[in-house]
Each structure stands twice: as C-alpha cells, then as structure tokens.
C-alpha cells in the first residue's frame, strides 16, 4: 500500500549529489521550481529536462525509483493534460461536435504535464538524495536567514525532523495494525464507501493511541537528555560548503540565465507550436 510513496524517502548511494551541502540542494531545488514556472518555450524545457537528467545520472539513484514516485500522480497529470487540451480557446486544429483541440491548448497541456512531472521528479530527487537529518539542518539554516523566523527556526526544524523521522515508523505501525486486524478477519477492500470508512476505525483508533504514546515517550526521553529548545545549542556537525557546492551554484546560475534567457531570444527557426 505504501510502497509507491517515494517522497520523503532517502535512497543512500554516497554519490556526489548526496555529498552536496543540504543548503545547496534546497536552494537549487527552490530555484528550479520557480524556473519551471518562468519557462514558456521548448528550449527552456529542454534545459530543465537536461539538468534533471544530469542530476539523476550523478546521483546514481535508479530511474525506476524516481518513476515510481510519479506513479500516484499520473491521474492528476493526465487530468490536467486533458482539461488543458480541450478547454483552451484558440486556433482550432481538430474538432468533433463540442470537443475541439486548439494549437494553444495542445501547447499548454504539454507544457503543464511537463511542468508537473519535472516538479515532482525534481523535488523527489532532492529528498531521495538528502538524508532527513541533512534536510532539516539545511532548512534550519535556510530559515535562520529570514528575519522573524530566526527565533523559531530551530524549533520548526526540530518539529520537521521529528515528523519526518516518524513517517516510516507510523507507516510500519499502520501496516502492523492492518495485519493484526486482517488476522481477525477485517476486510478493507470490499464494500461501499461507508463500509470502507467504517473499516478504518479498527486501524485509526490504535494508530492514534500509539502515536500519542510515542509522542509522550519521545518527549520524556528528550527531557531526560536535557533538551530545552534551540537557544545556546551547538552542533556536532556544522554545515560547511565545499568545492562541489561552488560548482553546483555555478551550474545553477548558468541554468537560471539560460532558462530565463530562452524567453527573450528570437529563434531563427519556427517551433511546431510556438
């Protein structure tokens, strides 16, 4: 059931992408996401695809693993594709009764589908190649530079890292409880929507009980080790930029320039749909 969710999962390979400073990876991903919405032409998308392919190749994470993360989103991607294709007004290419496909619609739907795919693939490659610990360290560093967030940056990061840490634990717990109830003949797969909702009670009640118990135990364990929030805490591992981070930022700058630039260049050749 949960096998398909790759978002928030870490896939260790020790590659150069994994070794990058988490701040670099977060900045890179944020800029990449923004650029995906700036780009409006095939050249820009080709650059975006190329950069993503390069990162995937460098990360040594099998492509199927990233593709698996896209699987749950296929429905949304197909839906946006179809809606954009049929609902956009413009120069009609094909018509059948009330349905029509326009030049603009075709372009928009292809771009939107690409945008969504790259968005999900780009963010999942970051989480796959960054350990949860690194990720929260990076987020804490990132939030600290925002005025107003500085004071709570540590607490937010700690909450986030605990939440991330407990995703697999709670999934495992859910799986265990489901199995235990299945062993008592519970049926989660058949019946109408009300039956199925009712069938969730034997899972949700024990899951909540266990989540509260775990939270309580964790709080006690943290207090027992004198945890008292962020002020004055020093770190065991201090984030430090290396040469590879400088290279990554150069690539980032070049990519940004190229992708924004692709909007303004007059192309000497015509696109199939411009």
């Amino acid at each position: 059931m949960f096998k398909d969710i790759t978002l928030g999962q870490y896939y260790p390979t020790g590659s150069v992408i994994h070794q990058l400073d988490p701040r670099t990876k977060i900045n890179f991903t944020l800029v990449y996401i923004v650029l995906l919405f700036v780009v409006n032409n095939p050249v820009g998308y080709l650059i975006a695809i190329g950069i993503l392919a390069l990162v995937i190749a460098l990360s040594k994470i099998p492509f199927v693993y990233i593709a698996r993360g896209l699987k749950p989103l296929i429905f949304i991607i197909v839906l946006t594709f179809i809606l954009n294709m049929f609902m956009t007004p413009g120069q009609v290419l094909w018509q059948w009764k009330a349905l029509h496909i326009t030049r603009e619609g075709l372009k928009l739907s292809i771009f939107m589908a690409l945008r969504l795919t790259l968005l999900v693939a780009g963010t999942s490659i970051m989480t796959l190649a960054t350990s949860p610990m690194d990720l929260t360290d990076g987020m804490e560093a990132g939030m600290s530079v925002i005025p107003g967030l500085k004071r709570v940056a540590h607490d937010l990061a700690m909450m986030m890292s605990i939440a991330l840490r407990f995703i697999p634990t709670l999934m495992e717990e859910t799986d265990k409880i489901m199995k235990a109830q299945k062993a008592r003949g519970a049926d989660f797969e058949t019946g109408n929507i009300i039956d199925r909702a009712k069938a969730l009670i034997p899972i949700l009640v024990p899951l909540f009980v266990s989540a509260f118990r775990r939270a309580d135990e964790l709080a006690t364990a943290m207090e027992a080790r004198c945890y008292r929030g962020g002020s004055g805490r020093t770190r065991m591992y201090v984030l430090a930029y290396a040469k590879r981070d400088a290279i990554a930022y150069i690539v980032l700058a070049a990519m940004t320039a190229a992708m924004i630039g692709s909007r303004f260049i007059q192309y000497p050749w015509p696109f199939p749909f411009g």
Partner: protein
Amino acid sequence: MSLKIEHLDHVYAQNSPFEFKALDDVNVELENGHFIALIGHTGSGKSTLIQHLNGLIEPTSGTVYLNGVDIFNQSKEDLVKTRFSVGLVFQYPEHQLFEETVAKDVAFGPKNLKLSEEEIQERVKWAIEMVGLDYEKMKDVSPFELSGGQMRRVAIAGVLAMKPEVLILDEPTAGLDPHGRDTILGQIEKLHKATGNTVILVSHSMEDVGRYADRILVMYKGKAVYYDTPTVVFRHVDELEKMGLAVPEVKYLMRALKKRYPEIDDDIFTVEAAKAEIERVFGGERDV
C-alpha cells in the same frame, strides 16, 4: 491435517538497496495437534514465516498448504476463511485494541465471521474466561483502562474467539512480569490440552520452550534448521549456541553432571525431570 511449508522464499524490498532475504527455501511439515515452539535469533525470519501461515504476506516463491489446500492459490473469500482457521496473535497484541468495551473488542473476529448474535456472545464469554479473566467484571470495561497484562490477555481472547484450528502466538509474553508470563502460557497450555489444536509459540525463553512445547522448529538466517522433539533439538547444544540461541539451564547442568557421572541421562531440560533423574542416580531423598 497439517500445515505444509514448501520451498518458501521471501525477499523484502526486492530490487532496492534495502533488499533482504528473510526466508530462504523453508521446507517443513507441521502436523496438527502439536505444541510447537518456534525459536531463532532476532532477524532469523520467525515473524516473516508465521505471517505466511495465514496468508497475510505473500511469498516471493514457494507456498503453504493448510490441510492440503494451497493458501496462496485460492479465492479472496477462502483466504479470509484461512485466516479464521489459522489465528495469529502478533507481538504486543494490546496495541490493536480499539473498541469501547472488552466484550466488543473480543467480538470483532467472530463478527467478521458473520456468526449469529448468540454464538458471538457465547464465544466472547468463552474466550475471555479462557484467558483467565472474569467475564462479568470485564465485559463492559474499556480496554484502555486495563493493566498491560490484562490488555494482552484481552487481545489474545480476541483471536481465541475465532476458535482457530491453529493458534500462532508471536512472543506473547514479551514485556510481562513472571506472573503474567506464567498465567498466559498456562492458559495457552490448558487450551491446547482441552481442544487438541495446534499451537505455534514464538519464544526467546528456552525454559518456556522446554516446559511447554512437544516440537521445536529452529530458524537460522531464513532457513528452517531443525524440526524435532525438544529432546532431540536440545542435543545440538553447540550448534544452537552458534546460532545465537541456547538450551535451558537445566540441560547445561545435566550435561556437566554427565561428565562426572556417565550413568546419568542428560536428555533432560526441565527441573522436575532433572530432580527425578538425580534422585534415581544418587539414591533418593537426602537432605541437602
């Protein structure tokens, strides 16, 4: 009538960096009516194996036959019936309680069996009493108000109420005090003697294994290494130790005694049998 396990393989997270072979060509036939102890070091595949026995997880290859029927090659409805025939009590079963009252929680299994209301009530009462609790006192109590040991027993009653032919318990005494442990194991033994059903008990306590089981199945690195009577299995002291296991303390004592007194029989692993044997060899009751 048996549970027959044939060439059972199970690989977790296949084709990922976390790939792990939990079961490796397990072949064993568990005849009905035995009290079987399943022992093995942590990670030896015990929990994975028992989840195959009632079809909760599917094997990577190989299969399990329950009374001659391939449980992984049948309709969904029949698979659910298999789960009623092979009752599985997970580790820390108290974590699966969810109903408002003890009686309602125990009734969950029988209700899924679609039994009549009277039959359900009867079974609930029987199961709660079977685990040594007072039905009248317990039935309207919220399971979340009970002590840990009582919650554990209510959860076990929830599986007993389905009256399974084969009862599997995954470390039912983990985290209980000695009294709670003896109560639960004693009730299980009583049930086994009364109904003659198969019991499979996963345990780390060799003392409990020696005391209750009449068959032992030893798992090591995903393989079923031994399946025999405790007498025979406990003869492999050195091999068991290499697998990170042990034999009951009494067995060590009898082995040490045999080195000094060769006439002593060292196929003994319970205190009572040891006492009888020592009295036989050293001539009866003496004040020590």
